[in-house]
């Protein structure tokens, strides 16, 4: 079988490893589990796969209260009860009260769809276990209507996790796995280029150096990530900060301008200030 191969897109830079993972998952129609630091483009990946391969995208965002059943279907007993009170005719067919979930929608799709299960680690720890058969066989049974729902085309399933909870082994065995490493400077340059093509080379180089130095400060609770870098660069451009302001010498002494876009909590800011203070005193 011939498949289009995913290699990234005009808006999304995919490393060869990531492209391989996606292509393996697409070819064998197995779920792909994506982990990585927050802000490295896990969620965006699904959107880009759908866009490049021209497939419909179904998104299922997981919350701490999400149940696996909600992804399949829900039986709206309350509506049915109310309809029976009002003597509606549709009450006799239970199928009228089955509300389809995201997984069902994806299974019913006419072309092979992309299904994003976002932040699966937010849910209860039993959540992945409840989806084993559905992800493996791509089918499930609706008890109320005694109907077996089977995927017309095995969807390309992209699952993201932020590592807040350990996922069960049985679940992991059924997935392909890829960990998005934090991009190196070269890849980062390409990413920023893709997002802000008009950016002065000089400014970009300074911004990246400054950014990677900040990431190396040990003990940061939340290291700035790609999406934060992009926000920061946007601010720098909007404020028209000259590259000189980001120079190595300066940033040793003080925080980089508009650092609020990079550091997201108070402790980290204190820590960086402290490190800066110490390095100034050491001179």
């Amino acid at each position, binding site marked *: 079988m011939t498949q289009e191969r995913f290699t990234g897109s005009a808006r999304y830079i995919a490393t060869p490893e990531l492209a391989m993972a996606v292509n*393996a998952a697409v*070819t*064998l129609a197995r779920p792909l589990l994506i*982990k990585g630091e927050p802000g490295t483009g896990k969620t965006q990946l699904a959107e880009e796969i759908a866009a490049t391969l021209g497939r419909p995208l179904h998104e299922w965002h997981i919350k701490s209260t999400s149940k696996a059943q909600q992804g399949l279907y829900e039986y709206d007993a309350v509506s049915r009860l109310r309809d029976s009170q009002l003597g509606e005719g549709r009450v006799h067919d239970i199928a009228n009260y089955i509300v389809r979930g995201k997984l069902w929608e994806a299974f019913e799709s006419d072309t092979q769809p992309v299904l994003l299960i976002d932040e699966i680690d937010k849910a209860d720890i039993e959540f992945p276990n409840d989806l084993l058969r559905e992800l493996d066989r791509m089918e499930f049974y609706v008890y109320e209507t005694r109907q077996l729902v089977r995927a017309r085309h095995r969807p390309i399933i992209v699952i993201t996790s932020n*590592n807040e*909870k350990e996922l069960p*082994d049985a679940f992991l065995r059924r997935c*392909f*796995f890829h960990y998005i490493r934090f991009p190196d400077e070269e890849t980062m340059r390409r990413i920023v280029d893709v997002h802000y093509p008009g950016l002065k080379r000089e400014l970009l180089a300074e911004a990246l150096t400054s950014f990677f130095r900040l990431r190396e400060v*040990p003990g940061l609770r939340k290291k700035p990530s790609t999406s934060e870098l992009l926000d920061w660069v946007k601010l720098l451009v909007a404020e028209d900060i000259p590259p000189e302001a980001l120079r190595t010498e300066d940033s040793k002494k003080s925080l980089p301008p508009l650092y609020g876009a990079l550091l997201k909590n108070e402790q980290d800011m204190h820590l960086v200030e402290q490190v800066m203070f110490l390095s100034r005193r050491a001179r």
Partner: protein
Amino acid sequence: MLVRFFFDLRAGGVPVTLPEFLTLLEALEARVATLSADDFYQLARVCLVKDERHYDRFDRVFAEHFRGAEKLFSAFGVDVPDEWLRALAERVLSDAEKAQVEALGGWEKLMETLRQRLREQQRRHEGGNRWIGTAGTSPFGAYGYNPEGVRIGQAGSRHRRAVKVWDRREFANLDDSVELGTRNFKMGLRRLRRFAREGADYELDLDGTIASTAKNAGWLDLKLVPERRNAVKVLLLVDVGGSMDDHVRVCDELFSAARSEFRHFEHFYFHNFPYESLWKDNRRRHTERMPTDQLIRTYGPDYRVIFVGDATMSPYEITMPGGSVEHWNAESGATWLGRLTTHFRRFVWLNPEPAARWEYTPSIAITRELLAGRMFPLTLAGLDLATAELRRSPAAISPLPPP
């Protein structure tokens, strides 16, 4: 050939199973990878490795298998926990430190020494010599490396500081961001969860609705109940530093498991034994302390208290005023523990030391006595017992005799 690779991976500590291996073969058959070593490597990793923590092991096995390269893995993996070395390698060294490393014969030499030291350290621990004071001597002191700097399972924390001041005892903040194998702990802790109904009505009470609808002769009468909410309140008091160094990893895991399980969750640290004050942040432990009195006033008796500590110290640190190793305490630790246990009726002490060793350590025996026997080993079984203890209603617990 690949079958050998499969078994090599398993031997190398990558948990690969047969279905995953078959998936790889299927992918090869479907020509996902072209005929290039890079492609094959990436594909194999995507199929066989399910956790970024195993990437490193996979790489080593791969290198060994496909290039017949040096048997690095056996030298590393057998004697020394992988994470120790990894944590070290991930450290950010300054230029001066790098120069120092060079002066000592380069990275290789240093790693060799380190490996050797770690081995010695393990043996020493097996010998059971854990008394206060000995843990402070650093096996890498000569090189300016503090073993506290090689914090297990806590890559990228406060290494730099530990390197610079090797003889001042630094305490690792138990990191709640790492989550290693916490699943087991969670399963245990889940039993502690007590669902209490509180808050606004917005969930349909199906049973109540059926009952009252039937009573209404079939006319619908909806009943709503408040949403189920986890209302267990937990106060975690953790011993850090000193003899607890050996147990940092296991406590780390407990800590991160506990953090995500409870709605009301507070933690405090103490050193060896709770005295008149506790602290929340190890970095600011000398400036920001919470007096134990205030803790008792702030958190009501409905909080369940979990102490985590090895209770291994000199008995004087518990029984005598002024016994603390790091400051002058006007009242003995036993008095303070007594105040805590009278206020918080529901409490347990989790001890990472194996239970078999408890009776040989006088301080553990004293602590157990003070706790009326509510000390449990930090294992799954111990957690079961501890959670069962914590779930008892306060009325069922007989108050402790006053200290």
